[in-house]
């Protein structure tokens, strides 16, 4: 067991009182008072309903909330479970809140959860976001069961997304991770995941790169590290993911910098694994896939195209250092098209991403600048995607996405070649 001085005496004392458990549920918070009680109640009901005999604890690392979030977590309770479940908990329900110091990022909070799982000998460790509106008790079962009972080490989520939601995942993260790591995992930055106890212990011990993965990057790192580490990976249907986030949506630039940057960094960390990886496997998927009619996400396609065109023009000198001449020429050509005729084809987009990844690896320019240069190109890809699929049915869209994924897979040797090339 790793000895961790970052755990406060009070936290350790609370964990000692809880003792050995089977399930840890981690719920990192920061000023989530408005939503967290409902989330806690869903977790408690889920544990009582699906794991009444298992010993469990909810660990709530808090970044210093000033709105009474931790008090709300402690106060959240079901006065009479029989009114909800026709059953009562057999065991004491444990909820442990603790403040963590340091930056208000996910990594430190996750570290506390992993430490708790390790110290208490947990067999399964689930992570839940505090701002979920759509969580149900069934999410607990969907995430925990594969880790607790079916021998899987990593359980990723499968969300039911609204149309044109998650385009960054669908066009960049998912297909590149699939091609590189050889696993068809739907949500590589899923925030609701579960780990086996041994994977949580592994992550606790291997935190040396945590400072490289801000925000969602920590989840990308977990997902890719699990795959690269040879752990058993699966995913579970959860349903729509609806949140109430009081934070203003990060601008696209920051998102791409974080997410794409984390992805490229992961590729560096795991290069010995993915370069040698030949297969591409489906990942076992558990649970019941709901089919709900969700409103599409509205995106200003035209504005996206305009930003793409102007971005290509303004950043040409930068793009010349990142992309191959042929790729850049093709991008310039499509940027000159009329908006209604504009297409950013799959092969060009995949090639662009591969070249960006390799260039990031070789640090051809400042990495932050490199990632920022990807943003207008991504906008172009989004504009094209919406234009092509605006009236398509969901099955058609899925076929096209599958075609994109296969294009990435086809380009894997190209990625490897560029990755390994000598930089001039």
């Amino acid at each position, binding site marked *: 067991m790793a000895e961790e001085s970052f755990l406060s005496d009070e936290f350790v004392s609370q964990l000692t009182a*809880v*003792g050995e458990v089977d399930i840890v549920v981690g719920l990192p918070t920061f000023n989530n008072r408005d939503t967290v009680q409902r989330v806690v109640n869903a977790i408690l009901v889920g544990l009582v309903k699906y794991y*009444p005999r298992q010993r469990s604890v909810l660990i709530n690392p808090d970044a210093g909330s000033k709105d009474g979030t931790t008090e709300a977590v402690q106060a959240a309770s079901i006065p009479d479970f029989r009114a909800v479940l026709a059953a009562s*908990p*057999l065991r004491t329900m444990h909820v442990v809140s603790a403040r963590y110091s340091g930056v208000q990022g996910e990594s430190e909070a996750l570290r506390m959860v992993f430490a708790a799982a390790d110290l208490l000998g947990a067999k399964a460790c689930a992570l839940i976001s505090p701002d979920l509106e759509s969580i149900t008790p069934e999410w607990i079962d969907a995430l925990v069961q594969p880790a607790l009972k079916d021998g899987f080490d990593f359980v990723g989520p499968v969300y039911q997304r609204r149309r044109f939601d998650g385009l960054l995942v669908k066009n960049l993260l998912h297909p590149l991770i699939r091609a590189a790591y050889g696993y068809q995992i739907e949500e590589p930055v899923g925030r609701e995941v579960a780990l086996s106890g041994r994977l949580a212990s592994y992550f606790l011990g291997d935190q040396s790169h945590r400072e490289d993965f801000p925000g969602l990057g920590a989840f990308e790192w977990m997902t890719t590290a699990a795959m690269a580490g040879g752990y058993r990976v699966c995913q579970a249907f959860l349903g729509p993911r609806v949140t109430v986030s009081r934070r203003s949506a990060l601008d696209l630039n920051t998102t791409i910098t974080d997410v794409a940057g984390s992805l490229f960094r992961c590729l560096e960390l795991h290069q010995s694994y993915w370069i040698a990886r030949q297969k591409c496997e489906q990942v076992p998927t558990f649970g019941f896939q709901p089919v709900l009619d969700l409103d599409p996400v509205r995106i200003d396609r035209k504005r996206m195209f305009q930003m793409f065109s102007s971005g290509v023009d303004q950043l040409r000198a930068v793009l010349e250092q990142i992309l191959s001449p042929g790729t850049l020429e093709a991008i310039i050509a499509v940027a000159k098209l009329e908006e209604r005729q504009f297409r950013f084809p799959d092969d060009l987009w995949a090639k662009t991403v591969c070249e960006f990844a390799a260039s990031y690896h070789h640090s051809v320019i400042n990495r932050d600048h490199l990632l920022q240069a990807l943003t207008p190109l991504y906008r172009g890809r989004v504009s094209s995607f919406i234009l092509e699929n605006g009236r398509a049915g969901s099955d058609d869209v899925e076929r096209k996405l599958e075609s994109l994924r296969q294009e990435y897979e086809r380009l894997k040797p190209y990625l490897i070649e560029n990755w390994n090339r000598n930089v001039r």
Partner: protein
Amino acid sequence: MRTTSSSPNIASESAVPGADPLWYKDAVIYELHARAFHDSNGDGIGDFPGLVQKLDYVQELGVTTIWLLPFYPSPLRDDGYDISDYTAINPAYGTLENFRELLEQAHRRNLRVITELVINHTSDQHPWFQEARSSRDNPRRDWYVWSDTDDRYRGVRIIFKDTELSNWAWDPISKAYYWHRFFSHQPDLNFDNPAVIDEIWKVMQFWADMGVDGFRVDAVPYLVEREGTSCENLPETHEVVKVLRRRLNEKYPMIFLLAEANQWPADVRHYFGDGDEFQMAFHFPLMPRMFMAVKLEDRKPIMDILQQTPDIPETCQWGIFLRNHDELTLEMVSDEERDYMYDMYAFDAGARLNLGIRRRLAPLMDGDRRRLELMNGMLMSLPGSPVLYYGDEIGMGDNIFLGDRNGVRTPMQWSGGWNAGFSAADPERLYLPLLSNPVYGYQTVNVEAQRRTDHSLLSWMRKLIQVRKSSRAFSRGGIEFLQPRNHRVFAYIRTLGTDRVLVVNNLSRSAQPVELDLRAFEGYIPVEMFGGNPFPRIGRLPYLLTLAPYGFYWFRMRRL
């Protein structure tokens, strides 16, 4: 201790001179069947003279009261709970003279004796029922509950669901149905008939005049039936009890009534009335939760049920127990809890009967000495008068293949010799076979072997009872629960006046630390009651204790 008031009944007063009418609060009760204890005449069946021969053992154990299971004439189709004569002794167990001798010898040893009052039903062989069924015009017809159809009292639950399909049975002689809440050969008496109540009172007087010290009233909730109800716990039932109690108080103030009412605490509370019904009632729902808590390693089940338990009149007392002659009943638990108990304690379906588990304490604890001690420690320290089932003090096992509840009613194991020292008869004549497997068989588990060592379970149980009796905080004190963060530790304080005892139980199989908030006792010195050693004085900081697996402490809190 209060002195007894004058009473016209010499027999009941002679039990213990200068006795306290609330003596039952301090009782440590030992439940046994004369048939199972010791056979004096070599017929293979235990008897009263045999029991008398073993009274020294009972006295040495430290218990204060013997509860005798039914010994009346009976066809024995329900182990004597089917009575065919209320004022006689089953010849297999002896005579009325033998019984009087037992009472005298027990009282000489300061042992009280309580007997069974099985009044909800009789055997169908009882002369009352034989008369009642003979004709619709018979004077005793109305002593039982009859119907021309089996439609009445629809929906009432069947208690012996493994063997009975209905609460009505067809009587081919009188061509009518009769009501029976238990076996079909046990027709229910009709307590709407005052003659029945009067006759039962005569029965009570018969035994009270002889000198018994109390009655355990079987199956109380079912005395009266009413259409459209569950036929349990009806107000009319309580009226019957009040009548009997009033008469008992007037004539025999030292005799107490103990209710067998397998109900939720809030429902059992009514059987205490305002101190004008039963003086004692079994706390059935607590028992399975003690077993649950040890398996879950969590005090929650016990805490929940005790916090739901209402206050009872000052003159009343709960009767608490771990096991008895019946199956470990799981009627008063939720479906989830029942499933858990079955999975944990009766994975072999052969151990399940009705809604319960027909196993003894030691096999339920897997023969684990530590768990046996912990369970008995809680039994002796929680509020109530503890009831110890014969044989559990030496860790007797069971035999689930004997049918019904016979597996927990096997002969007492006195020695490793002939028939375990129970009887001189040929082994084939014994009323039930002895346990003979290598783990719990009489050669391994017996009184003689355990008497030889201070470290045996028997020696430990004697010590436990002795320590319990050293403080009336256990028997008459209030209880305050401590709620340390470690849920595996179940801690409470028993208080009677200035006598305070801190009890700390580790429900877990692993060693546990616990910090107790004892600021209210700052300056007190806890003295561990078994060894007599003082522990560090209590200060303002949380009091840290470490407990061995399944370990427990009893501390007398001394202020010096």
